[in-house]
């Protein structure tokens, strides 16, 4: 049971969505966009949710797209992780999404919801960071398409009333060699101890991480160290780990030292696979 009362709206166009957000906001209802809703419902049940209105994005035509348009794969923000996995148009993204929660919940979680939620792991962002994806954002100020590497800084940096409508991935990236590894403490279905997505692009390795710091990230500085073949494998990995963009997590999933140990082992295996 969710004790909180709120209103529910399900617009069908981007314009209607922005209009209803503005109206509800002006009425002081603190509207919130709603994707798959798994996180919002869980928060609501625990009374950790403050909103007077939910705006469901799942019937907006632009947010339901999943297809190639010219040389870009366009994925609407309301596309579920299951749809991404079943169509398998971007195998690395399919694989990363298929390790989030369990299969039934993947039928509900949307790409936009995973990217914009409050849970820190957001593992679907990793392949999108590696592939220099573009994010199509709609909001009261109009529409804009921006590189994900500029708009995702620890979390999606959206203005008031803005929402992610689509992700666009250049076709050249979807078939790049890749390795995805999600290491958990014990169970298969749980949050990651460490989740790593890597992609081989133009002779170099790109790497993005979740579960390492308090936010998912791709670090160019770390990639430069990982790709420095003048050093030994151990040196490359040690130097890269020294450059994480935040403190390495120490929590119930694992201590900082244990995480470092796991990351080293995984990166060693991954680099060997990609450089074969």
């Amino acid at each position, binding site marked *: 049971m969710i004790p909180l009362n709120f209103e529910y709206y399900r617009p069908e166009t981007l314009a209607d969505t922005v209009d209803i957000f503005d109206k509800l906001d002006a009425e002081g209802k603190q509207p919130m966009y709603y994707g798959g809703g798994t996180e919002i419902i869980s928060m609501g*049940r625990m009374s950790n949710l403050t909103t007077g209105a939910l705006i469901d994005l799942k019937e907006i035509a632009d947010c339901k797209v999943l297809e190639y348009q010219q040389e870009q794969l366009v994925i609407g923000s309301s596309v579920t992780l299951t749809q991404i996995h079943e169509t398998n148009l971007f195998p690395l993204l399919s694989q990363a999404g298929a390790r989030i929660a369990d299969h039934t919940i993947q039928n509900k979680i949307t790409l936009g919801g995973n990217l914009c939620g409050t849970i820190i792991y957001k593992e679907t962002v990793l392949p999108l960071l590696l592939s220099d994806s573009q994010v199509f954002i709609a909001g009261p100020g109009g529409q804009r398409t921006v590189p994900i590497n500029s708009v995702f800084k620890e979390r999606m940096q959206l203005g008031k009333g803005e929402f992610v409508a689509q992700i666009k991935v250049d076709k050249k990236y979807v078939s790049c060699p890749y390795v995805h590894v999600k290491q958990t403490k014990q169970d298969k279905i749980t949050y990651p101890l460490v989740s790593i997505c890597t992609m081989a692009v133009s002779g170099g390795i790109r790497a993005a991480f979740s579960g390492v710091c308090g936010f998912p990230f791709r670090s160019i500085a770390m990639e430069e160290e990982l790709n420095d073949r003048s050093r030994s494998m151990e040196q490359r990995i040690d130097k890269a780990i020294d450059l994480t963009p935040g403190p390495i997590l120490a929590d119930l999933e694992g201590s900082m030292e244990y995480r470092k140990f796991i990351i080293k082992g995984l990166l060693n295996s991954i680099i060997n696979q990609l450089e074969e």
Partner: protein
Amino acid sequence: MFQLTGEGLIELNVNGETRKALVRPADTLLFALRERLGLTGAKPGCENGDCGACTVLVDGWPIKSCLMLAVEAVGREIQTVEGLNGAPIQKAFVDKFAFQCGYCTSGFIMNCQGLINIHPDASDEVMQEWLQSNICRCTSYQEITEAIKSVLITENT
């Protein structure tokens, strides 16, 4: 634009019938099915998306009804265990003794039915991936696996 701004009647397509339910926008589909429509086959367990006891099919896909608002289901086709009417997977659960206390059974059956509908030729790997969405505290996993495999095999031959 569909909207529900307070407690009101919504129409749900459940097991092939149009049913009216009085709900708040914050009510879950699980609540509406059980408390408004009398369909108690979907069970409340964790109500946090972990156990799968509340699984129903929405447009053919297994969904944990504790993690779906009732208003979200307007315009979608919902199937609960009551709508299966003696499907082969139900008989298989009996034949293979795939339950002990039975509390998780309807959720497991609906997940299995979704798999049978969508991937009737599912590999063992796919089957395991799907079944991991549900928990049986009596640990009847082996028998449940045998039940679903018997239906997948039956339908493939």
